[in-house]
């Protein structure tokens, strides 16, 4: 800590910060552009100048750039000094010289950092009368729009895109007052994190194209604190709604999770919420009737569904890892725990339970995304993180970059001095080792890579554990060069202060997980202060495994054996989990198939009865992320406000109403908190979820929290096409949020749940500063969510022992290839794949072969390959991988028309001769 005097007042600040951070953390307004809490300082824009005095008697002082000036104890500063004020005003005037007067048509307007800073510095009149420099814009793909004339050359975009996110195709060109930020040529931005440019850019050079297609000003959007459902990372988001449509998704700051950044799936994958083909009404399908679907009133739907379920011999409920804990629990209550399936395939469910045991019993804690950044050696086993849990890949990059920060730190270069660190460290990184089946987009930060089949990756991991701890089972027959690589890694691990082991579900391999566990246990045994990160496949996989329930295979078998004749499927497409044939055979035996879902999946299309469920945007619930963090997402809008007939409700509401209708009793659960509490009471492992967010009675100064900004306009007219009588705003009994601009939206009172970031004078995402304990730190009320899984204290003595079922070496055949799953951020996830912009970025399904196999087989680059796996036959275009090992082929998983039961199996290949 240090004491500084600012404009005559004394403050205690963190002595490791720079002056700008210190001032902002104190809540003082100093304008800035190039500095960013996550990107550090480069001192290029000159906007944050303040006066620094030699001592308390110095009256002249000198101007310094606050972002480039470290804190000195007992120093004297002035923000309000006349010269400093004038200097800052002149900088904005320079920066604004070429800036167009296009705020009214600019998508950034209303949440623009440049607007905020221009107002803050008092520059209200343009004196520049000469011609402005203009640029041509580039096509950058379906996500990000480019408008270079607005650029003020702060360099934040390239610093984020290249330095922070490891992108290679965005650069800065030209010199002096004529610089251009863009790609070397028009084309799609290749980074999985390109959407963050829209928030990192202080003005409207990079804006959200998906938002632009149905644009609404920030002040006219209705927001809610939400959780991304795109993968298991648990990133916090702020979806914005207008007229019953989600219009955009912005990042929501959580100091322990995603901080300022999201991946492009999370930001641009929301389109499925707005799709016209969603079921919005309860439907009854009577195959004997002539007419197709019969829509029902809510009461009729409940009565007729209850009647059919009552008639059934036995009802089995199939839950879903993409649905909330509350909805899954409501289903479990409806059908009874003995009839409840998690809806997860048996192998995956087994691995989820294994993961949870590992997290409790390896002895190593699992880090938050923020904590991942603070590891100094990382081993990744099997996961192509950029495609399966992209935000974690971004954290991993920061862990690697931590090497540069640490190295520079030894020479007293502070961690915020970004340019000096990069100059000094010359790309030095903390060691990251990647063992994956193919090349990945983290290879550029890897000190070493290993490529093999899933079993070989497991053997590699087992080898590391054995080399670290002689008592761990050894692999025996590892090749010499692999042994050498293992020895190198072990050396690095032993020298590390905080090593991290990462594995996950994507290869569907128990062996890979067990190998990761052995390494973790060996790390713990060696007395190293390590961590273990395990990545399940879906948003609530962790939560569902904690809730418990049988596998989907069990449920399917029960139907096949005619042990049950009715199924209630909750937000789950069974065809994505088990072979279509098995699902079909089972469902043929089901007399009543009730599907409660928001998306017309193939399962939903087979249903006898469909009840329209809420997506994340229309409902609330709790999810458990990969680190075991329970987080609540809140309803963004009430769909029936604009569509009075819309019957969309949270699945738990439907299921509970159905339950009470069947039992002919009154509804018990009238609000979310009751359900959450019941889950917590029923499942000890989930007891903590009650505290994942404040309950519905939470008030600030007697007020609810506003979902819309103060200036939200047109409320009286918004529904005028339906009725000129303005109805009462929807009442939200489930949460502390109001569907209104009335309510608390300030920064002074601590609160975790923040629908949108705004503070007087701060309209851009930089307003998050105002909610934090220190800029870039944690929210003052604590970061949202609650962690449910911590390692057992006695794991050393009572926990799992080393696994010894090490797979045997890979067997190469001349006529058979093992099929491994490959993943794509855009395309492999079910719901986002229904968003049009994501579809534009999704490749056609393909078969990947290693270069050596392509040569041996004499395949033509442009050819198609016929793949026979079991009874499946696929004709796929060829894609050549530089790293895929011989004898292994990769096929993208989660894609339409790619069967689910080919992975891990052996395939025969045939080249399709082109006509």
């Amino acid at each position, binding site marked *: 800590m240090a004491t500084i005097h600012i404009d005559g007042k004394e403050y205690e600040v963190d002595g490791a910060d720079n002056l700008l951070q210190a001032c902002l953390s104190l809540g003082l307004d100093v304008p800035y552009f190039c500095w960013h809490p996550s990107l550090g300082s480069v001192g290029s824009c000159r906007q944050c100048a303040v006066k620094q005095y030699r001592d308390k008697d110095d009256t002249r002082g000198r101007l310094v750039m606050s972002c480039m000036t470290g804190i000195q104890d007992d120093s004297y500063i002035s923000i309000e000094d006349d010269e400093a004020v004038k200097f800052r005003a002149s900088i904005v005037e320079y920066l604004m010289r070429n800036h167009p007067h296009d705020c009214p048509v600019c998508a950034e307007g209303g949440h623009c950092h440049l607007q905020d800073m221009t107002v803050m510095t008092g520059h209200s009149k343009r004196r520049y009368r000469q011609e402005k420099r203009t640029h041509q814009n580039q096509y950058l*793909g379906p996500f990000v729009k480019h408008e270079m004339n607005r650029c003020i050359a702060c360099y934040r975009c390239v610093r984020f895109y290249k330095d922070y996110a490891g992108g*290679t*195709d*965005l*650069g*800065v*060109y*030209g*010199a002096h007052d004529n610089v*251009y930020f863009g*790609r*070397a*040529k028009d*084309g*799609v931005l*290749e980074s999985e994190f390109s959407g963050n440019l829209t928030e990192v850019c202080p003005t409207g050079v990079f804006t959200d194209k998906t938002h632009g297609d149905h644009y609404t000003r920030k002040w006219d959007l209705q927001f809610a604190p939400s959780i991304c459902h795109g993968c298991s990372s648990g990133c916090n988001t702020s979806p914005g709604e207008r007229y019953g449509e989600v219009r955009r998704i912005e990042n929501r700051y959580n100091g322990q999770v995603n901080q300022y950044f999201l991946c492009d799936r999370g930001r641009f994958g929301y389109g499925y919420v707005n799709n016209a083909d969603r079921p919005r009404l309860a439907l009854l399908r009577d195959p004997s009737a002539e007419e197709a679907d019969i829509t029902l009133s809510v009461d009729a739907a409940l009565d007729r569904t209850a009647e059919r379920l009552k008639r059934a011999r036995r009802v089995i409920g199939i839950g879903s890892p993409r649905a909330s804990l509350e909805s899954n629990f409501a289903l479990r209550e409806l059908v009874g725990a003995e009839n409840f399936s998690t809806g997860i395939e048996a192998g995956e469910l087994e691995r989820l339970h294994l993961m949870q045991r590992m997290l409790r019993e390896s002895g190593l804690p699992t880090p938050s995304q923020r904590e991942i950044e603070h590891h100094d050696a990382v081993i990744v086993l099997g996961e192509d993180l950029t495609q399966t849990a992209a935000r974690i890949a971004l954290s991993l990059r920061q862990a690697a970059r931590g090497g540069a920060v640490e190295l520079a730190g030894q020479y007293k270069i502070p961690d915020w001095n970004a340019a000096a660190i990069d100059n000094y460290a*010359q*790309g030095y990184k903390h060691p990251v080792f990647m063992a994956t089946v*193919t*090349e*990945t*987009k983290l*290879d550029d930060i890897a000190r070493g890579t290993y490529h093999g089949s899933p079993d070989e990756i497991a053997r590699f991991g087992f080898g590391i554990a054995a080399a670290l701890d002689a008592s761990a089972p050894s692999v025996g027959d590892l090749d010499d060069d692999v042994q050498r690589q293992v020895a190198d890694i072990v050396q690095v691990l032993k020298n590390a202060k905080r090593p991290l082991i990462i594995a996950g579900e994507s290869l569907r391999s128990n062996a890979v997980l067990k190998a990761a566990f052995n390494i973790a246990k060996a790390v713990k045994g060696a007395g190293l202060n390590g961590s273990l990160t395990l990545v399940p496949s879906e948003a609530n996989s962790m939560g569902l495994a904690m809730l418990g329930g049988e596998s989907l295979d069990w449920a399917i078998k029960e139907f096949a054996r005619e042990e049950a004749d009715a199924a209630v499927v909750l937000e789950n497409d069974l065809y994505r989990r088990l072979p279509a044939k098995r699902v079909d055979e089972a469902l043929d035996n089901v007399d009543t198939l009730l599907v409660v879902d928001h998306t017309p999946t193939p399962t939903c299309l087979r249903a006898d009865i469909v009840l329209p469920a809420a997506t994340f945007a229309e409902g609330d619930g709790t999810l458990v992320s990969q680190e075991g963090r329970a987080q609540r997402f809140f309803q963004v809008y009430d769909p029936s406000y604009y569509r009075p007939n819309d019957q969309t409700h949270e699945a738990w509401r439907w299921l509970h109403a159905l339950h009470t209708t069947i039992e002919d009793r009154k509804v018990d659960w009238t609000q979310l908190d009751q359900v959450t509490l019941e889950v917590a009471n029923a499942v000890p492992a989930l007891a903590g979820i009650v505290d994942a967010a404040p309950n519905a009675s939470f008030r600030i100064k007697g007020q609810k929290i506003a979902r819309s900004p103060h200036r939200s306009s047109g409320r009286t007219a918004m529904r005028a096409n339906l009725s000129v009588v303005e109805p009462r705003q929807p009442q939200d009994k489930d949460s502390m949020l109001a569907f209104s601009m009335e309510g608390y939206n300030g920064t002074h009172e601590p609160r975790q749940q923040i629908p949108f970031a705004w503070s007087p004078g701060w309209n851009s995402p930089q307003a998050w500063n105002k909610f934090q304990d220190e800029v870039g730190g944690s929210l003052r009320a604590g970061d949202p969510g609650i962690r449910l899984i911590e390692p057992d204290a006695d794991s050393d003595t009572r926990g799992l022992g080393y696994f010894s079922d090490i797979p045997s070496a890979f067997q190469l055949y001349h006529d058979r290839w093992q099929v491994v799953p*490959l993943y794509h951020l855009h395309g492999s996830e079910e719901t986002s794949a229904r968003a049009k912009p994501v579809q534009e*970025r999704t*490749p056609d399904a393909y078969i*990947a072969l290693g270069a050596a196999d392509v040569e041996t087989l004499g395949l033509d680059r442009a050819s198609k390959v016929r793949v026979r796996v079991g009874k499946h036959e696929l004709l796929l275009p060829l*894609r*050549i*991988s*530089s*790293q*895929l090992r011989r004898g292994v082929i*990769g096929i993208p998983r989660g894609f339409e028309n790619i069967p689910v039961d080919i992975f891990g199996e052996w395939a025969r290949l045939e080249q399709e001769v082109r006509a």
Partner: protein
Amino acid sequence: MSSLYSDLITSDRAEALKYELTEEERAEIIAEIGHYENPRAASIEALKIVQKRQGWVPDEAIPAVAEVLGIPASDVEGVATFYSQIFRQPVGRHIIRLCDSMVCFINGYETLRGKIKSELGIDVGQTTSDDRFTLIPVVCLGNCDKSPAMMVDDDTYSNLSPDNLMSVLEAYK
């Protein structure tokens, strides 16, 4: 960029295949890389090597150079657009670099520029229609004591005046 994902989109790699560096150019660039700890440091020299043969650096050459250096094309493009002496458009057979910095400016830069304009018909940034000369400005040739100064290709000329300027240029066919 990994090949597996790059097929999705127009990649730098595919661009690089469109432009052929000669064997000599490639060898020279690799030799330059050997002088530095980091291949990136050879960016300027690599671009000069391309410019030496062609007289300028076409857009298609950027990914080709980037591939040899093993760095992103956007980085090479950044360097190639930053330095005014890396030409990104075709230039004439001879380059006139006329100094426009302080001392030369005072001592007659503008007169010389006018003379060139009237005699050759080109202003700064332009090339004669017969592709003989391209005129570009340059900032200080270190000859302020003998200003105004200019370079034509690799030769430096000092104490220029409208009277002796054209006879100097006449030597360059």
